[in-house]
């Protein structure tokens, strides 16, 4: 049974099945809307995913060596991390979460700067203005409102800027996500909401998170056109995000995209996923790996020869080695930073507290 809905509503609903361009086995699906990205883009997607995954694995390794305080891996979600970011233009902004280090790196942020938070060095190690990447956000869903605000300001200033915000499936339950969708709808803000539905919020599976037929159905209630996409298909993710960015940039307003993917690793290195999920489920998703799939398609179509493949892998290894080397030593930290940025000008109380700390440190040195 199917039901007819008015056109104004139908235009906001996602398709019943996720948009997919390349099937898990690397063959082309029947879908032509959106159309498959150019082969150059497909190769870039592949390269970004391979390098991203290698760096992600390196980060997990660094936690074991005590070089990172904690690391939330995005292994298995590379199609989203890379596909979405490659769909942005230079003037656009990215609003990532704690899980989206690969997206941040794909955007060009230096890995050592990007990892400052997770090394325990400083909360945000990069200048957000440099690559137009907001600080990786921990309080869930709060970044959605920042993205909407930034996008609204762009419109008010007459600038052509689109904001892409990344959210998890769990984050969609927070009031801030809904408020952001609603405000974006009302103001037709040039913002793209990409929900990476990776099946879990720490230990809580989607079925305990929401009774929605799909998270993409949340858009219609706020007036947003919504897309459901295969989140392990980098070509598809790139295409739908790109279309949403284009629409936003041309005054078409916001889009909600739900990408179906999977968190292959535990929530973070500190988590014990065995407590709440089966290996069989993980195995199922490993069959749908985004890198394997795009690689197969590229090889079959002759777009990726062994030399190119080797070059990409070498690049990934080099990036990992560089990261390893550059995080082998503790970065020098300046205790004055504790006080320097709380206000534009430190008030007298903070200067006094800084002096107290200096005195203590001097004592400590003198004493020890």
């Amino acid at each position, binding site marked *: 049974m199917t039901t007819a809905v008015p056109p104004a509503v139908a235009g906001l609903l996602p398709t019943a099945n996720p948009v997919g361009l390349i099937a898990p086995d690397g063959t082309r699906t029947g879908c032509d809307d959106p159309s498959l990205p150019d082969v150059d883009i497909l190769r870039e997607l592949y390269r970004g995913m391979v390098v991203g995954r290698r760096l992600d694995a390196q980060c997990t390794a660094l936690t074991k060596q005590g070089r990172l305080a904690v690391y939330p891996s995005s292994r298995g979600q590379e199609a989203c991390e890379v596909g979405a970011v490659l769909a942005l233009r230079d003037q656009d902004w990215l609003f990532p979460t704690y899980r989206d280090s690969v997206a941040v790196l794909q955007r060009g942020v230096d890995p050592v700067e990007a990892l400052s938070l997770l090394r325990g060095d*400083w*909360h*945000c190690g990069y*200048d*957000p*203005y440099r690559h137009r990447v*907001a*600080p990786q956000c921990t*309080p869930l869903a*709060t970044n*959605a*409102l*920042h*993205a*909407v*605000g*930034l*996008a*609204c*300001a*762009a419109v*008010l*200033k007459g600038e052509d*800027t689109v*904001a892409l915000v990344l959210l998890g499936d769990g984050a969609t339950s927070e*009031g*801030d996500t809904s*408020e*952001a969708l*609603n*405000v974006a709808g*009302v103001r037709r803000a040039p913002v793209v909401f990409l929900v990476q539905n990776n099946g879990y919020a720490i230990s809580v599976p989607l079925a305990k998170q929401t009774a929605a037929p799909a998270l993409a159905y949340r858009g219609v209630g706020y007036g947003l056109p919504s897309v459901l996409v295969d989140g392990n298909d980098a070509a598809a993710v790139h295409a739908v995000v790109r279309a949403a960015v284009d629409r936003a940039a041309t005054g078409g307003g916001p889009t909600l995209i739900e990408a179906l993917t999977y968190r292959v690793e535990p929530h973070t290195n500190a988590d014990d996923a065995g407590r709440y999920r089966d290996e069989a489920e993980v195995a199922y998703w490993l069959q749908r790996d985004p890198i394997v799939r795009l690689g197969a398609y590229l090889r079959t179509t002759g777009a990726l020869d062994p030399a190119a493949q080797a070059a990409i892998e070498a690049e990934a290894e080099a990036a990992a080695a560089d990261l390893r080397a550059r995080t082998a030593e503790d970065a020098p930290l300046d205790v004055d*930073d504790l006080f*320097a*940025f*709380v*206000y*534009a000008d430190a*008030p*007298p*109380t903070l200067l006094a507290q800084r002096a107290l700390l200096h005195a203590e440190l001097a004592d400590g040195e003198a004493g020890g």
Partner: protein
Amino acid sequence: MTGVLERRAEGSAGPTPPVTMAGALNAALADSLAADDRVVVFGEDVGVLGGVFRVTDGLARRFGENRVFDTPLAESAIVGTAIGMAMNGLVPVVEMQFDAFAYPAFEQVVSHLAKMRNRTRGSVQLPIVIRIPYGGGIGGVEHHSDSSEAYYTATPGLRVVTPGTPADAYRLLRQAISCPDPVVFLEPKRRYWAKETTSLSVDGPGIDRAVIRRSGRDVTLITYGGTVATALDTAEAAGGEGWDVEVVDLRSLAPFDDATVTESVRRTGRAVVVHEAPSFGGYGAEVVARLTEQCFHHLEAPILRVAGFDIPYPPPKLEQHHLPSVDRILDAIARLQWDDRPEVGRA
């Protein structure tokens, strides 16, 4: 207020007597909007209605919907989008309709507004002003009379200011809007319609300074916002009891102007802190604690607090019992151990 607005030349700061605090705030918003293209004003009902207290009256008409606009009814969204706008170069001045209705925005205020500059080592600054009508005394039903300053003053990274007079309302709001730090701007509701004959000017004490509103030799009353007038009335009445009372209007609750206030307290040797928020865990505790630490050997008596009771804000017909009154402040002054007062050893 529309009158005030229209009488004033843009950006000028000539005399406009007499002006209400609401009128002064309206003028400050208008002058800031006129002076700086980056300023935008938004919130619930601030557009065509002009705000439930009419503080934004006429601004949408004068500056257009791109500068002054209504938002959907969602305070977290108001603050959260303001943060995004400020990241993109605007200077948002947002209104929370009543201070209990700012609570939905608490996470955005505490976890982002207060921390963004620090988080990004100064790269991202958020020159946002959050205007919050605060306090009681207007016969408001439940949730319309909270004094929530303690929540904000306990949060490093925020400036918290509140005016006690119309002239200061104008000055402080303009200073807040041009301040690079986020500012929680508390507007004492019951003073909105208090009039003052004054010229509105941004010049004068800076955003982080307390001022001595009335000089006196015997005791310092330390207060802010809605109770500045009460303290001044108390000072008048105290004259009759033979006490010469000094009144300090803090203006900036955070950061605190230690220099001005300790000078006064060391001089008088006695002090009472007055505010209408509950006493327990209230902002007055910080004032007492830091002044006691800095002025201990000058004190003839412990610094006392006259504050609201440690109860949820009462319904309208009982609020007069809760609010600090002249009598209650006089009683506190009387408890400052005048009989024991040693005439030696005072500064």
